[in-house]
């Protein structure tokens, strides 16, 4: 076990897989010479050279299309978006070209590609750099959507993504890059579609992903002062979702609250609660609740930004109010 930042865990996953498989290459803006806008690709150009670590012009649609084509041709591209906000430029390549080709080719053409980069809000980068795309991609059949919280998962899940025969959306988080967590030694893979119980509890299930897991864990500390022992589930995989783990948890706690940094409308919380209501209705002791970002483009102003994204305090407060009043 070593204490490693999420940033390094991602770099290690890429490097280890690239050493094993010469078909893997990394492509994106500033991934080579600059070693990544967020320094995720540190040392990769030096090790693998500019045939496999490819700097591109600022043209997301262009290099994403190129990468999807390469995947069709048998290579394994890892596409880095400087932030997922810029992937809107390439959304046609991701959805129409990457996600749908296996189906439209009658199962003949696989697209083994990973799209990755920081997703959602960071600190004060304003609405056009703070978009959380998790629910958009989770809506698309043909895509796998992963969003890790800690270093161990980031590494193991990215390896699973690289080895997946399907296009994988890999949603990282800028603030988490710098956080350190323990990472197991050696080569390992976190299977796609498996959630993780970050904290076991018996009174209420909090389901979240990415930085929301941190928020939920902090909220559970506040709740414990009110004698509420919350179970915190890290989804890890947003598509497919591990409903088995969630429903088993709800059968134990009889209460569920989802926490996400994205907007609530047609969001992941809505999806989870819908499934829980259908499949574990008779285990619910209270109406489920969703907590998410306010229904506005994320403000730039620090105070307003803080008000818009769920904080641990807000999550705890909403949980308590909900449990007592609804």
């Amino acid at each position, binding site marked *: 076990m070593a204490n490693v930042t999420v940033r390094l865990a991602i770099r290690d996953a890429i490097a280890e897989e690239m050493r094993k498989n010469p078909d893997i290459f990394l492509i994106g803006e500033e991934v080579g010479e600059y070693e990544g806008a967020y320094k995720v690709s540190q040392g990769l150009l030096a090790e693998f050279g500019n045939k496999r670590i490819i700097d591109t012009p600022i043209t997301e649609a262009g290099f994403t299309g190129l990468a999807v084509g390469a995947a069709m041709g048998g290579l394994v591209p890892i596409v880095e978006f400087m932030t997922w906000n810029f992937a809107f430029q390439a959304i046609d390549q991701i959805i129409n070209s990457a996600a749908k080709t296996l189906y439209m080719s009658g199962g003949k053409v696989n697209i083994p590609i990973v799209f990755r980069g920081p997703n959602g809000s960071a600190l004060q980068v304003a609405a056009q750099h703070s978009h959380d795309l998790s629910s958009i991609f989770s809506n698309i059949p043909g895509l796998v959507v992963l969003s890790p919280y800690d270093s161990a998962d980031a590494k193991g899940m990215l390896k699973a993504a690289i080895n997946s025969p399907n296009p994988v959306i890999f949603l990282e988080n800028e603030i988490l890059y710098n956080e350190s967590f323990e990472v197991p030694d050696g080569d390992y893979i976190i299977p796609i579609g498996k959630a993780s119980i970050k904290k076991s509890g018996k009174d209420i299930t909090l389901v979240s992903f990415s930085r929301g897991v941190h928020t939920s864990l902090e909220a559970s500390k506040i709740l414990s002062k009110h004698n509420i022992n919350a179970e915190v589930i890290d989804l890890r995989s947003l598509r497919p979702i591990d409903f088995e783990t969630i429903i088993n948890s709800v059968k134990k706690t009889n209460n569920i609250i989802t926490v996400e940094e994205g907007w609530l409308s047609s969001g992941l919380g809505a999806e989870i609660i819908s499934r829980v209501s259908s499949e574990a209705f*008779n285990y*619910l002791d209270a109406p489920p609740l969703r907590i998410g970002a306010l229904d506005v483009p994320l403000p730039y102003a620090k105070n307003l930004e803080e008000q818009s994204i769920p904080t641990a305090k807000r999550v705890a407060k909403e949980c308590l109010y909900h449990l*007592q009043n609804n």
Partner: protein
Amino acid sequence: MAVPILMPSLSPTMTEGNLAKWCKNVGDEIKPGDIIAEVETDKATMEIEAIDEGVLDKVLFEDGAEGIAVNSLIAVLKGKDDTDEKVKELLVKYKGLNEVNSKEKLNENNEMQDVKNKEINEIKGLPKASNEAVKENIIADDKSNEEINNYNEEKENNIQIDSINTNKFQDRIIASPLAKRLAIQNKIDLKNINGTGPKGRIVKKDIDLFLNKNNEILNISNKYNKNIKISSMRKVIADRLSFSKNNIPHFYLNIKCNVDNLLMARQQMNENVDEKNKISINDIIIKALALSLNKVPEANCSWGERDITYYGSVDISVAVAVKDGLFTPVIRSAEVIQISEISKLMKDFVYRAKEGKLKPSDYEGGNFSISNLGMYNIDSFSAIINPPQSGILAVGAIKKLPVVIGEEIKISNTLSCQLSGDHRVIDGAVGAQLLNEFKSIIENPYKMLL
């Protein structure tokens, strides 16, 4: 002008109240400040106080009426110059208002029906269409569609919603899906369960509580609690002794008396005396206490709010146990009457107490009490003062105990007594003086001759 009396809102959460009882009758004159009625809220019973003057002319609810909405008219106060017309006008006005209130309730129910209709439409995969459109889409031979049809017709006809129909929704039990499932599994009727969740929802906890309670009852095999109405004697005992313990600063002094001489004296007193006239130890104790109080008059007194009363005679209240309670008949002027007289009086009191034939004059008054549990084999105990008296002597059983006399241990008959004193009027030293006087008499019975 006629004054309406409305169900008051006594707390922010109160929506309806129960009329516990009327404190005035129809026709009674009411003055401002009079208590007209007692109203029970979810939390407490409160009094409705009159603000205006008049005659209680009409009462709209009986004693014990429940669930009266806040601000409903419950009574009418008729002023001096009011005609019956005025009262009637008021009644019409408020009856109208009450009807509006109940109509609001009906409307709520209608809304619930709308929701239900909507739900049904959605379940059937029909768009949120008007009732007409729904009807058109219905296939005649589909049974469940017929139900929808009926529902819609019902809805159209709901101008004449009857009480049964409204009750259907009022009686709905709100329970969480989990609670419902647990209730089915455990064969519990949700009607028997109190919902403690938000908005009164029955939640898992309530089911668990109910099940545990039932298990407890099963475990003690058909032992049920029963409630018995409190008798007036118990009520008096409860009130007086609670008052005493709450208000009188009790202090306690213990003393042990050697009663070898006393037992011998009693034996001699009772020689050639027939059984029913024999003197008891208790009779002698009464006399001894009376004489002690006579010697220490500072202890023979009562605390009053303004002054302390010192009594001229020694009237001893003696606790006599009866079924479900006790009486304290009084031996008056016990310091002057003979032991044989005390004995006779006591025998009569005990007999009449057990027969329930004591008169108030037998047990009213008294300056000091004796409670003797010697016959129940109690060593010693702390008694509660019988107000307004200044003290009570708690007498235990006579026991043979080893006693150090000089340098020797001897077996002697020993009586333990404990004095409870009212510290407002007696101090420790006075109490000690009294007890020592008592001990000296008990240990040397001939002193009773002095």
